């Protein structure tokens, strides 16, 4: 693509069109962990399409490698998935422990040991330094905090420019309370060393500028994308309820403090007082699950709130398609793919103003996460006025085309090119 004499494209020596990126991440589809793997997958796919060679380094996790190879079977030359000896698990606090089999006794009984997640991140970094010496590449790109140290180690080992991709921060995960000091320390140190930082929203950019003291000029915003195909329609779930004329409000996501499910339940109480024909479905699991179940009981909402467990793939799609409104009540959401997925399934969303996706998604209802009265008001209004729901879907879907992974990859590719230009000049 650089052979043409297009004014808008800088002319590069040919070998740069095969730029090779050493990418570190810890989650890749079809693992079932949330938006991060989806983002890495979408971005990598589109970058490969652009002729970028991606070496994706994942900590060793069962299935991950085989699955990833399976997904990129067609592009095998361009995407190379490497595995390292590590046991990182996504979305864990720094002091949560990772259990692994370190060997076997003579009797065949496994020897189980554990390490903290920070220790794992350091181990990952150690491996990364070795890989950086073995492989040839132009740029290092590390996704999310567990890979930051690996990225930094690779940079030190190779001297190549480093991009850190911020999908979430310690402040998001902790909803600004009790921020994990060891994660915060890793973030600050890595941000200082990185050549460029990519955040998934201006919301997150502001946050790291404010909280981590990052120079805003170093930060580039690349909004996450979304797949633009129209998914297949399935037989809806909860048909019985729908036949009774009940309306369904869906929460889909992890049940953690960051996601604001407790505010959602408080809004549900207000909604049900006005309109008892509304049912709330919570699809997901997380460390706050039992607390939320207790809260539902204590607020007398047991007949109005359904816990569906964590739903994936077809089940998840069916759930989306059965809902009348999807709510993402996040306290602090760097991006948030749920409302975009919901749109694909033809369901409008209510999101919080503390969500990065709101910067690109106009056709959604927006509230402050703490304003449960307003959240309830908007849920009830959405149920009263179906015209508004259909318009949010129709116009929102048109906007989805602007939000493809292709657009995101274009920006990242541009960033790679600027970095390489800087290196060569």
């Amino acid at each position, binding site marked *: 693509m650089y052979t043409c004499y297009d004014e808008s494209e800088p002319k590069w020596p040919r070998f740069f069109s095969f730029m090779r990126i050493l990418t570190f991440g810890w989650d890749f589809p079809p693992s079932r962990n949330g938006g991060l793997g989806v983002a890495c997958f979408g971005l990598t796919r589109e970058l490969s399409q652009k002729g970028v060679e991606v070496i994706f380094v994942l900590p060793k996790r069962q299935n991950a490698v085989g699955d990833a190879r399976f997904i990129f079977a067609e592009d095998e030359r361009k995407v190379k998935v490497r595995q390292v000896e590590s046991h990182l698990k996504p979305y864990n606090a720094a002091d949560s422990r990772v259990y692994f089999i370190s060997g076997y006794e003579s009797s065949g009984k496994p020897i189980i040991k554990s390490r903290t997640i920070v220790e794992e991140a350091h181990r990952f970094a150690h491996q990364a330094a070795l890989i950086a010496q073995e492989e040839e590449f132009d740029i290092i790109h590390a996704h999310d905090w567990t890979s930051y140290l690996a990225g930094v180690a690779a940079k030190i080992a190779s001297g190549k420019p480093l991009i850190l991709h911020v999908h979430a921060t310690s402040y998001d995960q902790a909803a600004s309370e009790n921020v994990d000091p060891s994660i915060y320390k890793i973030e600050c140190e890595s941000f200082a060393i990185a050549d460029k930082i990519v955040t998934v929203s201006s919301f997150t950019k502001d946050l790291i500028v404010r909280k981590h003291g990052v120079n805003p000029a170093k930060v580039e915003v690349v909004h996450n994308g979304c797949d633009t195909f129209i998914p297949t329609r399935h037989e809806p779930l909860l048909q019985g309820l729908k036949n009774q004329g009940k309306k369904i409000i869906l929460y889909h996501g992890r049940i953690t403090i960051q996601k604001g499910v407790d505010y959602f339940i408080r809004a549900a109480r207000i909604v049900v007082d006005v309109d008892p024909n509304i049912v709330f479905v919570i699809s997901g699991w997380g460390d706050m699950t039992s607390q939320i179940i207790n809260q539902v009981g204590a607020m007398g909402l047991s007949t109005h709130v359904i816990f569906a467990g964590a739903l994936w793939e077809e089940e998840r799609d069916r759930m989306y398609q059965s809902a009348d409104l999807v709510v993402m009540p996040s306290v602090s959401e760097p991006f948030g793919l749920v409302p975009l997925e919901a749109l694909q399934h033809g369901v409008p969303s209510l999101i919080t103003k503390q969500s990065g996706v709101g910067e690109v998604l106009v056709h959604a*209802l*927006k509230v402050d996460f703490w304003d449960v009265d307003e959240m*309830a*008001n908007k849920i009830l209004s959405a149920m*009263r*006025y179906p015209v*508004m729901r259909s*318009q949010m879907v129709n116009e929102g879907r048109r906007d989805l085309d602007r939000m493809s992974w292709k657009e995101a990859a274009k920006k990242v590719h541009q960033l790679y090119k600027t970095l390489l230009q800087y290196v060569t000049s």
Partner: protein
Amino acid sequence: MLTVCPYFHVHQPYRVKRYRVFDIGNDNEYFNDSSETDLNNRRIIDKVANKSYRPTNAILQELLDTHPDFRFALSFSGTVLDQFEAYAPDVLESFQKLVASGRVEILADTYHHSLAFFYSVPEFERQVLKHKKRIKELFNFTPRVFRNTELSYRNDLAKWCEDNGYLGIMAEGWDKYLGWRSPNFLYHPPGCKKIKVLLKNYKLSDDVAFRFGNQGWSSWPLNAETYAQWIHAHHGDGQTINLFMDYETFGEHQWEDTGIFNFLRALPGLLTRHGDTSFKTPSETALSYDSVGEIDVPDVLTWADTDRDLTAWTGNDIQKDAVSTIYGMEEKVMATKSKELIETWRKLQTSDHFYYMCTKWSQDGDVHAYFSPYQSPYDAYIAFMNALSDLQLRVSHALALNEEKALAREERKLVEVKTATALEVKPEPMPNPTTWQRLKNWCSQVVGRLPFLRMIISQKH
């Protein structure tokens, strides 16, 4: 000979507060926001009065005093007049003073700045009449030229105006309908003989209204000399330059630091410096010139956005839903005969409410966002529809009450009739007196009247 016809439109709506579902049936006040946001109507009037109405009126007064030829036109929505009266009576007085000069014309309009003509002509007529009365009462003036909300225009509206005795009507001088022709002449609508259409010169008008403070504009900064030259350049190819814009252009849309006030202050002097240039009000313009041709506008034409149609108000589904819901209530609202309910219903017809729900995201969209006090079109729709739901509830209560009253009245009547018939004692029918009896009666009456006869009879006995 070239005349300039400046016309400034003064309007503020009653913005609906953040009216929630829970308020339906509990809160009858939709327009009384008291927060520090732009939903607070009193706060907006205070703000715009200081930024625009007070300083601009002072300049206009000064211009009228110093330039005996200077004249212009104003149009007011009833909603802004009501708010001036309540929140800024001094502003209203300064407008009255301007009009008292005899060189400021007021245009006819709908009272509630509504799009009623396109949805219900009878309702439109009621609003125009109400506006006419209000203008007479406040300014002792009877408008003779019509302008409809957002300069919306269509052939049938022009026909209506002619039938109702107006001299002229205003419209956007849009190329789609003008073709190669110039907006600087008067035209007539098809099938009309008397009424003339005054077309806005949108290039020259928008240079002031929209582009004046835009630093990215090639002609920025625009000074009054240059602008006067642009107008003088039309000598020979036009009769009237119609400069129509929002009054709030001065100080509100274009802030004081853009130099807009100095521009306004300098312009009339510079324009009339050219001997053959003068000012005319719209009715003077309509009376001075003949129509040069027919202008045929079968679809709605407005002065908004690059589309110049109604899509800024009724372009998307939520806008259509809101508009059809409110006009669908007409029959019931009118049947309540309640002044308060009808007035509230009309305040909700103000076109601004629908403008806030617009989702066009082009360059126009930015304009919409600037003018909207809501954070999103959906917030605007929710507040509006919830308020409307409450109004529907009140209307059906009022109708039920009316029905009850009517029933009670009927019952009372029935009871009255019954008791009346029960009380009425029918007098015994008098038997027809015979001739002899009549004679006897007559005799005794005569005897009774004449004392001497009475005496004779008694002496006889």
